[in-house]
């Protein structure tokens, strides 16, 4: 009797446990709540953002929600189709589509859509209430890019303000720059020795900012060589760069009042091939025994070959580039190097044209603002003040 009781009891217990656990496997999880659907901000009008509160069963020890499915329909009672799925623990989804009308995944702007979110376990699911209607529409201004906009406008105003100050005759001070100060000496040296000057514009195209800066520098240097009656050789590796360089040098000679001394054959096109170009330039350096070499513009792997040949040949070398990987070779093997931003500034320095100096001043003011922000920002971050960081956070 006792035995039967025990057996019955254990069966009961087993049943009880089954009761507890087994049907619960099949039970649907708690549905996600507070589902909201609204236009995705700052976009082109082809997406809606859906957010929800996680299901009560989303979490490690609970009835394991594994994922959420996001469903969409044209009407609250219509057929809902699955638009996407995110793993458990996520509570947002951007329902996006193509912007081309022909695309089958085209997303209609300005059309009412209804959403619901499905919490899924391995073998069951439950659905939220229907949210909506929501419409997608495109914005005319990207709010996330506001910091960039403020930066752009402020900087443009600063440049224009400094330029107008310069036009009114305000004198600007700029500190001496070793590489620039050396230019005059280098030209003087070439004149004394009666040897030519070599000017390399780099491998950039005529549209690269570094090449454009280099053109302006070439113009100033050409003017000085005209005054000193020194020969300047400009071998180019791009036909367009060459023709611009010819005009630039010609203008420099004109400025110096010596248009008669300009020789077009000294500014010539060699080849577009990187290493063939370098080999030819090396040949010129050794043959012509150039007293001074300028390497200003975009440079790549050839930088060190040029600098080595010039160094061994004993030329004075002044270099400058914004290619960070090449600056080290120039610093180690040439006499003066214009580092990154200094190259862009050099054109303003050499010409001392008030307009360019004005732009340089604006750049400095911007730099001062950046430095102050850095200092304040680091302090703010040290005291866990997050607002400062937000000023610089750009959303793409």
């Amino acid at each position, binding site marked *: 009797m006792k035995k039967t009781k025990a057996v019955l009891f254990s069966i009961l217990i087993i049943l009880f446990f089954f009761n507890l656990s087994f049907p619960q496997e099949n039970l649907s999880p708690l549905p996600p709540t507070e589902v909201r659907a609204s236009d995705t901000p700052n976009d082109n009008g082809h997406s809606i953002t859906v957010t929800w509160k996680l299901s009560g069963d989303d979490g490690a020890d609970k009835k394991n929600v594994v994922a959420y499915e996001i469903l969409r329909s044209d009407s609250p009672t219509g057929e809902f189709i699955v638009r996407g799925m995110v793993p458990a623990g996520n509570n947002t989804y951007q329902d996006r589509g193509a912007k081309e009308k022909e695309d089958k995944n085209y997303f209609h702007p300005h059309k009412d859509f209804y959403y619901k979110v499905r919490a899924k376990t391995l073998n069951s699911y439950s659905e939220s209430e229907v949210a909506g209607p929501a419409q997608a529409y495109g914005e005319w201004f990207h709010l996330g890019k506001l910091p960039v906009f403020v930066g752009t406008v402020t900087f443009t105003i600063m440049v224009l303000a400094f330029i107008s100050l310069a036009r009114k005759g305000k004198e600007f001070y700029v500190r001496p720059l070793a590489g620039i100060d050396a230019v005059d000496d280098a030209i003087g040296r070439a004149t004394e020795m009666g040897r030519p000057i070599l000017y390399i514009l780099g491998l950039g195209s005529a549209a690269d900012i570094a090449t454009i800066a280099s053109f302006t520098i070439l113009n100033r240097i050409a003017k000085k060589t005209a005054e000193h009656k020194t020969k300047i050789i400009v071998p180019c590796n791009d036909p367009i760069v060459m023709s611009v360089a010819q005009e630039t040098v010609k203008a420099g000679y004109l400025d110096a009042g010596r248009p008669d001394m300009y020789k077009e054959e000294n500014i010539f096109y060699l080849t577009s091939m990187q290493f063939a170009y370098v080999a030819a330039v090396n040949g010129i350096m050794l043959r012509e025994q150039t007293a001074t070499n300028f390497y200003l513009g975009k440079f790549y792997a050839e930088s060190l070959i040029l600098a080595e040949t010039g160094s061994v040949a004993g030329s004075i070398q002044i270099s400058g580039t914004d290619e960070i990987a090449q600056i080290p070779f120039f610093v180690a093997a040439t006499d003066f190097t214009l580092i990154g931003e200094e190259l862009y500034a050099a054109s303003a320095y050499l010409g001392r044209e008030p307009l360019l100096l004005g732009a340089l001043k604006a750049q400095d003011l911007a730099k001062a603002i950046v430095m102050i*922000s850095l200092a304040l920002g680091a302090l703010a971050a040290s005291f866990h003040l997050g607002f400062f960081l937000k000023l610089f956070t750009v959303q793409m």
Partner: protein
Amino acid sequence: METIGIWIAALLTLGIFSFLYKDNPFYKFCESLFVGISAGYWFVTTFWQVFMPKLADNLIAGRFYYMIGAIFGVLMLLRLFPKIGWLSRWSLALVVGTTAGLYFTRYLVSNGMVQVQNTIIPLYVKGNLSQTIGNLVIVIGTFSGLIYFFFSKEHKGAFGGLAKLGIWFLMLSFGASFGYTVMSRMSLLIGRMDYLLGTWLGLIR
């Protein structure tokens, strides 16, 4: 076919290397071949990967405003005719404008604001000395580096000291860059040597 190819590749490699000893006809041959082949390669690649998908396909799809690209492209080719070559300046102007316009925002954001944003870090990290020192170094380094690039004030006194510190930071970074570049070049040479000694001659496994 594969074996012939490997032999050709190996001989061309040796041909280029022969320049290290002295300029010679073998090298000149390889170099000329390289010049021709790379020009041909780029001609074909730009045709199939730029001209067709970006120009022809768009025109076929009825987006006729892409004709602007064709027109300015042809203007570029006019450089071959000296009399009307100046028209190619218009294409150059378009390219310069596009570059300037795109670079303006791209650099302002990715090189400017993002870097500033990343440098706004706490100067003191509780209980983590090395991170604290590291953060200090980053903030001071960035700050003094910018001081070095400041053109409006002479590098004198405390300001000059900071600029000096800045240039030291810059040089340290250039040194690191130098080391890494050397590493890359050596890797390339190792790759070629492995090809010659392994793939071609089979001396190493």
